[in-house]
């Protein structure tokens, strides 16, 4: 009923996916180009029973200059999770809005807009604040946003904290002379 090799062939043929990499027997990842994501997700949902959307998230690949979106789908019958990945440009992050596929997609897209700065044109309420109110800095989940520096200059830190590295603290203060710490 559910053969991962057949699925791999179909995704390659229809959407140019670059194969399926399996981490475990019930988890696999594949990658497609951004313009093919909407069709690939609809195909997986309607023809291969990946009916459940687990989540949509993003990983900031700052060293490549791209943002990697991950759409995780779940097939309850075959007990299989498939993560569909795509990479978009980090400097002009725009992605097609898929809020018609599942009802929760709009929420995930709103969060990604706020946290990573990815625009999803047409998504309902995407311009509104989601979790942060009146935020005017860069999107906070990007790798180049320094949260500690922001916290120190915005919220008055209470003096007294010297280090947050437990290894250094143990080596210098608690167990001096131990080379293995």
């Amino acid at each position: 009923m559910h053969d991962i090799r057949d699925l791999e062939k179909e995704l390659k043929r229809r959407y140019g996916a670059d194969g399926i990499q399996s981490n475990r027997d019930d988890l696999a990842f594949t990658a497609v180009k951004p313009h093919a994501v909407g069709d690939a997700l609809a195909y997986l949902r309607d023809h291969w029973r990946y009916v459940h959307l687990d989540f949509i998230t993003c990983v900031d690949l700052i060293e490549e200059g791209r943002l990697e979106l991950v759409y995780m789908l779940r097939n309850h019958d075959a007990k299989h999770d498939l993560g569909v990945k795509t990479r978009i440009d980090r400097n002009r992050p725009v992605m097609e809005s898929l809020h018609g596929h599942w009802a929760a997609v709009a929420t995930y897209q709103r969060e990604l807009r706020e946290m990573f700065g990815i625009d999803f044109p047409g998504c309902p309420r995407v311009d509104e604040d989601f979790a942060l109110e009146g935020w005017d800095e860069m999107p906070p989940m990007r790798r180049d946003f320094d949260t500690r520096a922001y916290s120190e200059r915005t919220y008055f830190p209470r003096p007294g904290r010297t280090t947050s590295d437990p290894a250094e603290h143990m080596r210098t203060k608690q167990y001096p002379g131990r080379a293995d710490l």
Partner: protein
Amino acid sequence: MTTKDREKYPVHVGGTEPFDLESGRYMKVWQGPQHPGITGNMSLELITSGDEVVDLKTHVGYLHRGFEKLMERRKWIQNFPLVCRICVPEPDFNEYLYAAAVEELSGLTVPERANWLRAMNLEMARLTSYLMWLGGQAGAFGMGTIGQWTVTMRDFMLDLFEELSGGRIYHMYIVPGGVRGDVPQGWFDRVWSTLTTVESVLDDVELVLFNNAVFKKRAGGLGVIDPDMVDRFGITGPNARAAGVRRDLRIDRPYLVYDELDFSIVTGDGLGVESDAYGRTKCRVAEMRQSIDLIRQMMDRMPEGPVHEAPPNVLHWKIPPGETYLSAECTRGEYGYYVVSDGSDKPRRIYVRGPSYTHAVALLEHMGPGTNIADTAGLMVSLHTYPPEIER
């Protein structure tokens, strides 16, 4: 994307017209951020026509601490005290999923007794979270006594947790490699006697709650979930099971020791209830009894042995690059951790998937219109809304 570009893509309004607030027929009311029965803060922007809610928009973010950003700044082991604070009533699921993800990426194995202790911890956490929820569900309809009973029972369970791990709320008991320590002397006997007390209180609660005319009338027909809504909205957990969809991650995709235990799925049609707030409450109480039974089974069958396999020096622990997604059946539904490692001593990206993300935003906005304004709190609690996992 400028405003001019945006005019090319009209905003999807979901088929509802905007309401004319100047006409005097509608009133905008903000409900929140504090709701009776919900542990957590979120706002509902309601547009009401008299007593009836005609539109509902959710506003979250009151409890946003930026967990995922904080986790990227700390070493792998430093994240353990942090992850349990994402979910306050049942922190153990966070600890377990993070530990399991780290173990999978690093190749660490866990002794068998540790797996049993972990599963027992998870079931006890499930029970304590349900006890709190039950107080909230009854309290949302004005029955405060039930909350007094169940929260006291939850306190007795928290005493057990405190004896086991040192903390009432945040245990930090599940660590990479197993659990932090073995159970104290005589702890199992105390668990047994506490479970007996909890069961007798559950009998009282069932008698008082399910035969109460007010509860039957107010919770009956509130928030009906059809089976075809389940996949469209991504509903998991008791919300879906009360609608008749037979899905439980502990049975479908067993993790820890659930494949060795003897239990079956609790569904709405199995109990003979409708898929409304009343039915969901009945399902959850049945799952509480199921948890008690599972804890007893685990205590009977727990093997002896070590409880922890030490990882390498955790202060300089580099996890090999890779990614994984693990999910567990928490009280509210499917709870998941997506962990990405790039080979350094700090995580690259951790994403926490909470069930309330779908239940309390998209589903609530769909089910809100048509309810009485007095019942919105009851509706939110019956979906087991938990805002902190929406914005983490």
